[in-house]
C-alpha cells in the first residue's frame, strides 16, 4: 500500500520518530553522571532512568502492537507521538529523580505506541513490506547507536534537560503523517503466527550485551577516567559509525541470516572482552573494540529483526516482540551488570587507596610534604566515597614549596594513573560478563531459519 502524501518525506519523518524513541533507550547514558550529581543520587538509583524506560517499553510493546493490528495504527501513532512529546517535556522539567523516572515511564508507553504504529505506517508508505520493515529496523539501529553520542554532546553543550526538550518538536513532526495515514493501514483479523523464539532470544541476549557497550563504556570514560561528556560522546561515535557501515557491507556479502547473527555475536563478544582488557586509560584504546561491536551490532540486530518479522503476521505484533526482546534484554543486562560493576567499584577502593599510599610514601618528596599531602588525599578520598576522586585539590591545599613542584607534579600523574587503573579494573568483570551474554546469543542463532539471502 502506498500513500499520495509525499512518501519520501513520510518515510523520513516516521523513521525519525522511530529513531528518536529507540535513541531514548540509551540517550541519557552520558547524561547520567550529571543527573546523578544534580539529584545527589547513587548509581543504582540513577540506573532506573534507563531501566524504567526500557522495562516499560518491553512490557508495553506487544499490547501496543495489538492495538495497531486493529486498523488503528494511525490513531495509535498520533496518540503515541503526543504522549511521548508530553512525557519528554515532563522529563526536561522534572525537579526530582522520582518525577524524572515517572516521566520516563510515560515516555516509554507513548514510545511503544510510536514504534508499533510506525512499523505499520512505514510498510504502508514503502514499495513493499520487506522495504518497510528494513527501514523500520534500520531507523531503530541508527537511533539506538547514535542516541548516546547526541545525548552526550547536548549534555556538554547545554544541559541534560536539553536532550528531552529537543525531542518534543522533532517527534511531533511525524504527527501529520500519522493522522494522514489513519485510514490507510491494513487491519489484521486472522490468527497470529507464533513469535520467532530463537531470533527474539538472540536479540534479547545481544541487547543485554550492548547495554554494557554503551552504559558501562560511557561510565568508564566519564566517571572512571574523568573525561568530559563531549570527549566521551566523540569517542563512542566509533560504534554507530561502524554499525552504519556494517549494514550495506553485510548486504553485499550475502552470507545469510544465521551466519550474520553468529558472526555479529562473536564480534560483539570479542569487542566487549577487549573493553574488559584495556591496556591503558587512553580513550583511543576503546575505538578498535567499539568498531568490532559496531560491526556486530549492524550485523546482528538487522538480521535478527528481519528474521523475526519475515513471513509472520500480524507484522506489528512480531515487531512488538522484537522491541520487547531488545528492551527486555537491555533491562536484564542492566540488572545483571550494574551490581557486578558497582560491587567491583566498591571493592576497588581499598587496592586504590593502598596503591595511592604506596606512591606517596615512595615518592621523593620530603616527609613533611608527604604528611601534608596524605592529609588532603585522605579527606578527598573520604569526601568522594563511592566515586572516583579528583586528587588535584589535595595538591592545591597542601601548598608545597615551589622547589618541590616537579616532584609533586610527577606524583600527581602517578596517582591519577593508579586511580585510572583501579577504575578500569573495576569495570573488567562487567565487560567480560557482557561478552559472555553476547556469545550466548550464538546458541539461539544456530536455530534461526535460513530463508534466503538478504537483498
Amino acid at each position, binding site marked *: 500500500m502506498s500513500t499520495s502524501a509525499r512518501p519520501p518525506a513520510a518515510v523520513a519523518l516516521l523513521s525519525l520518530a522511530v529513531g528518536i524513541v529507540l535513541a531514548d533507550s540509551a540517550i541519557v547514558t552520558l547524561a547520567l553522571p550529571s543527573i546523578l550529581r544534580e539529584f545527589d543520587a547513587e548509581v543504582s538509583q540513577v540506573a532506573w532512568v534507563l531501566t524504567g524506560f526500557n522495562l516499560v517499553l518491553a512490557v508495553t510493546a506487544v499490547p501496543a502492537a495489538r492495538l495497531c493490528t486493529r486498523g488503528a495504527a494511525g490513531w495509535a501513532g498520533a496518540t503515541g507521538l503526543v504522549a511521548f512529546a508530553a512525557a519528554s517535556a515532563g522529563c526536561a522539567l522534572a525537579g526530582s529523580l522520582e518525577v524524572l523516572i515517572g516521566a520516563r515511564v510515560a515516555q516509554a508507553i507513548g514510545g511503544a505506541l510510536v514504534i508499533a504504529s510506525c512499523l505499520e505506517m512505514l510498510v504502508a508508505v514503502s514499495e513493499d513490506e520487506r522495504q518497510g520493515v528494513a527501514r523500520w529496523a534500520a531507523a531503530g539501529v541508527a537511533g539506538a547507536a547514535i542516541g548516546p553520542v547526541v545525548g552526550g554532546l547536548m549534555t556538554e553543550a547545554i544541559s541534560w534537560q536539553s536532550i528531552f526538550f529537543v525531542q518534543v518538536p522533532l517527534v511531533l513532526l511525524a504527527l501529520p503523517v500519522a493522522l494522514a495515514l489513519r485510514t490507510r493501514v491494513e487491519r489484521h483479523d486472522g490468527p497470529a503466527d507464533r513469535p520467532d523464539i530463537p531470533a527474539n532470544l538472540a536479540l534479547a541476549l545481544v541487547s543485554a550485551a550492548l547495554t554494557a557497550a554503551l552504559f558501562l563504556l560511557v561510565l568508564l570514560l566519564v566517571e572512571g577516567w574523568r573525561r568530559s561528556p563531549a570527549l566521551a560522546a566523540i569517542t563512542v561515535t566509533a560504534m554507530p559509525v561502524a554499525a552504519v557501515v556494517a549494514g550495506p557491507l553485510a548486504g553485499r556479502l550475502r552470507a545469510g541470516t544465521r551466519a550474520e547473527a553468529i558472526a555479529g555475536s562473536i564480534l560483539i563478544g570479542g569487542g566487549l572482552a577487549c573493553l574488559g582488557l584495556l*591496556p591503558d*586509560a587512553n580513550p583511543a584504546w576503546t575505538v578498535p573494540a567499539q568498531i568490532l561491536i559496531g560491526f556486530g551490532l549492524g550485523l546482528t540486530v538487522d538480521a535478527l529483526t528481519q528474521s523475526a518479522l519475515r513471513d509472520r503476521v500480524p507484522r506489528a505484533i512480531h515487531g512488538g516482540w522484537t522491541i520487547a526482546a531488545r528492551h527486555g534484554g537491555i533491562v536484564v543486562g542492566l540488572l545483571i551488570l550494574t551490581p557486578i560493576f558497582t560491587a567491583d567499584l566498591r571493592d576497588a577502593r581499598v587496592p586504590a587507596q593502598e596503591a595511592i599510599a*604506596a606512591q606517596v610514601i615512595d615518592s621523593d618528596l620530603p616527609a613533611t610534604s608527604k604528611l601534608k599531602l596524605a592529609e588532603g588525599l585522605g579527606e578527598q578520598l573520604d569526601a568522594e566515597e563511592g566515586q572516583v576522586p579528583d586528587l588535584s585539590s589535595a595538591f592545591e591545599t597542601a601548598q608545597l614549596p615551589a622547589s618541590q613542584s616537579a616532584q609533586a607534579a610527577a606524583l600527581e600523574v602517578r596517582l591519577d594513573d593508579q586511580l585510572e587503573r*583501579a577504575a578500569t579494573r573495576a569495570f573488567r568483570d562487567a565487560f567480560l560478563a557482557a561478552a559472555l551474554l553476547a556469545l550466548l546469543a550464538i546458541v539461539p542463532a544456530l536455530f534461526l531459519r535460513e530463508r534466503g539471502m538478504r537483498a
Partner: protein
Amino acid sequence: MSARGLTLIAAALILSAALLAFQLVSGGADFVPARSADPCEDRDRAVKADLESVGEAVVLTGIDAAACELGVTRERLLLALPYPEERAALAREAGTDEAGLARAIHDGLRTGVDRLEDNDQLPTASALLPSIGDQLGIPQNLVDLVPDGVVDELVPTADVLRWAVDQIDVTAVLADLDDPDALEATLRDALVQGAVDEVRERIEEGLPGPLQGLLG
C-alpha cells in the same frame, strides 16, 4: 550454512582474537593498581644526611618490619593507624589487640634501625649535626665548633635511634596521630632525649670509677 557464511564467521573470530591478543600483548591483563610490596623484603631506600630523612627511613623500615610481623601490607597498616576503629579491626585481623599492635610497631622500629645499620644506610651523627642544630635552634657556628670525630664517638647514630625508639610511647603516639604538631614534638623529644642519654652513658663509661656518679 554457505561458504560465505562460514567465511564471515571465521573473519569475525580472527578479528576478535587478533585484537584481544594485541591488547593482551600490550599489557591488557596488567592494567591494574600496583600491588603492595612484600613488607618482609628489604627495600632499597636512599637516606639523606638530614634528620627528617633519617626519621622517615627509620619509621618506614620499622613499619615494614611491623607489617611483616602482623602479616599485613605496609600500606594497610599505615592507612589503619590514624583511625581507632580501623586500628582495632587490623589488630583483630592480625590476631592481637591494640597493645600488641603498639608492641609490634615498637619492635618494628627497633628492627628498622638494625636493618638500616646493617645495610650501612645510616649517616654519621656529625653528618646529621647541621640539621639537628637547625631543629633545635642552635647556631651553625656553634655546631661547627664541635669536632666530627668527637660527635661520632659520643653519639653513634644507630645507638641514639635505638634510645629514641625506646623513649617513644607508641600507644600515646597512636592516640595523637591526628595532631601532626604533637607527633612531631613527641618524635623530636624522643630523639633529643635519646641523644642526651647516649652521650651521658658514653661519658660515664669513660670516667674513672669514683667520678661516674657525678652526672647523676
